[in-house]
């Protein structure tokens, strides 16, 4: 009996892990492209999910169309955030601390907008792929969970290909790794940073749409989501977006174990404790590369 429960908990922990991985991936993409930790990353997820909810439940649009609109809205929010907030701050040579503080302020602001628009309630979306169940050994899970895993892996693969093979992706890498060099070969560095934030928003929006059928969405969730993503991405190594997937899975499993051993109230305590320990003990993540960056 207990073994079955453990399997069930492990499977749901892995599903959550892929969600944290996606949030972490968004954070890592923004960090890679701008050396900024975006405390409002979790709010991309909220905005993506809430916009999807509004279009599918209030406007009555088909689910898939609403998802596309929701994810696009999160991407646009990312672009807007860069243009309206990050760019002027960089121009005024603001410190690392004040930029982080500004993104913390943005969390509050976006949360307030969501609160005013939809209120305090938690919203859910129908599971993608219907209510069907899938059997894994003795554990059952929704088909939605399988789609979460598949979507996360797809995003990872698409991102890797984007950075490696497309002109835009390579320009974005160039703009962040050597801004002066990038300017000299005609790359618009601020524009690349805007694209970086849009990409962060896009990935965040996808994560939001995927999480909402499982845990729902409400206005104040942003910072908790961000912090779990931070835990995933720091564990995986900040400059290595793919590491976030491994980090997310470890965090998801650790949480599941904590719920199994104590109770669900200690889920956040364990994750945040783990985050602190990871940052102190392994600031470069699990996969330390020769270049020491990101610590």
């Amino acid at each position, binding site marked *: 009996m207990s073994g079955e429960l453990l399997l069930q908990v492990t499977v749901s922990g892995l599903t959550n892990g892929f969600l944290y991985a996606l949030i972490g991936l968004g954070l890592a993409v923004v960090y890679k492209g701008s050396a900024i*930790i975006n*405390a409002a990353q979790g709010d991309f997820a909220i905005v993506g999910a809430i916009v999807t909810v509004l279009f599918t439940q209030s406007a009555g649009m088909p689910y898939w169309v609403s998802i596309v609109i929701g994810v696009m809205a999160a991407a646009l929010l990312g672009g807007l955030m860069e243009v309206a*907030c990050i760019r*002027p*701050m960089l121009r*005024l040579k*603001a410190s*690392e*601390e*004040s930029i*982080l*503080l*500004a993104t*913390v*302020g*943005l969390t*509050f*602001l*976006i*949360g*307030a*907008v969501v*609160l*005013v628009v939809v209120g305090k309630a938690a919203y859910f979306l129908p599971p993608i792929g219907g209510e069907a169940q899938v059997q894994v050994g003795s554990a059952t899970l929704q088909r939605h969970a399988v789609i979460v895993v598949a979507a996360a892996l797809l995003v990872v693969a698409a991102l890797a290909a984007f950075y490696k093979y497309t002109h835009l992706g390579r320009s974005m890498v160039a703009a962040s790794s050597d801004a002066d060099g990038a300017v000299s070969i005609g790359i618009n560095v601020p524009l690349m940073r805007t694209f970086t934030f849009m990409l962060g928003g896009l990935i965040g929006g996808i994560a939001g749409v995927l999480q909402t059928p499982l845990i729902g969405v409400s206005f*104040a969730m942003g*910072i*908790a989501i961000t*912090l779990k993503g*931070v835990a995933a991405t*720091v564990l995986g190594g900040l400059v290595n977006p793919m590491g976030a997937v491994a980090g997310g899975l470890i965090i998801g499993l650790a949480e599941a174990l904590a719920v199994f051993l104590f109770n669900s*109230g*200690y889920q*956040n*305590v364990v994750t*945040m*404790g783990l*985050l*602190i320990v990871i*940052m*102190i003990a392994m*600031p470069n993540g699990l996969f330390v590369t020769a270049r020491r960056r990101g*610590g």
Partner: protein
Amino acid sequence: MDRSLLPDSVRAGSASTRHSGGRGLALVLTCVSLAAAPLLLSVHYVDLLVFAALLAISGLGVGFLLGQAGIINLAQVAFYGIGAYATAHVTVAWNLPGLLGLLLGVVISAAFALVMGLPLLRLSGHFLALATLALMVIVTQLFFEWDWLTGGSLGIGGIPKISLFGWTFDTPMKFYYFAWPIALLCFWMLSNIADGRPGLAMRAMRDSPEAAEVMAVDSTALRTKLFVLSAILGSISGSLFAHYVGYISVESFTLERTIVMIMAPVIGGVRNPWSALPGAIFLSFLPELLSPLGEVYRILFGLGLVLVIILFPQGLLGIANWRRVK
């Protein structure tokens, strides 16, 4: 442009000496207007000013950390909560005087800040800020889970008004004349620290850690001491809050609270230790001014916070010097 070539600590030093004449006057004017305010204002505004005093005390702690040592502390609401729950527990469950609750809160907060600060303060920049945020999430979650101690979401009510030497501070007016002198005393002590040799060491550490180490500044010890000091101020503020409102629950200790605490000095202009004072008054009155708008006030409030961070890195106190610097 030439000013920006100077090390920040030198600029901060010259800024404080340049205004030393006007500063005493500003201080006297502040004290006089604060002393006279309750006589002129209605009880409602006196009440807001009491909350401003509480915010100023906890904001002073985080503002001092950020402005003098470059440490973002987003965990202040945790220490605020520890102070509040210590007071509630000592006065309600044990039926002992409020002063003991305040002291117990200070002792627990200081010890906790020391134990957490030693490992956490090895981090810097982004990681330190995120670690304090994680610490805040842990502590507020524990407030929620340990309902045998904190009452959870039901909270603890019936906290008596604080009394000293047979004098009970049971009206907003009386509490005002209790809280503000404490606040001003804290400000006076910390601005003295900032003006003295420790302040110089802190700013040197903030602007050039390696150079400060060479000049025999023990950064780890100094940062830890400051973190503990900030936690003590947070705890005092929390204890006073518990006495003033008489009822506390987990709803009082949220992310929003911790953001407001760090925004008070940031809005005031964080490099000046006194910045939390105008910032706290501003932040206490702003929601009140915007509240007729309903929930929309939260959007304007958030927008205002973000705009101030982006446009006025020097804060409200900096606006006066703005033309001069340009």
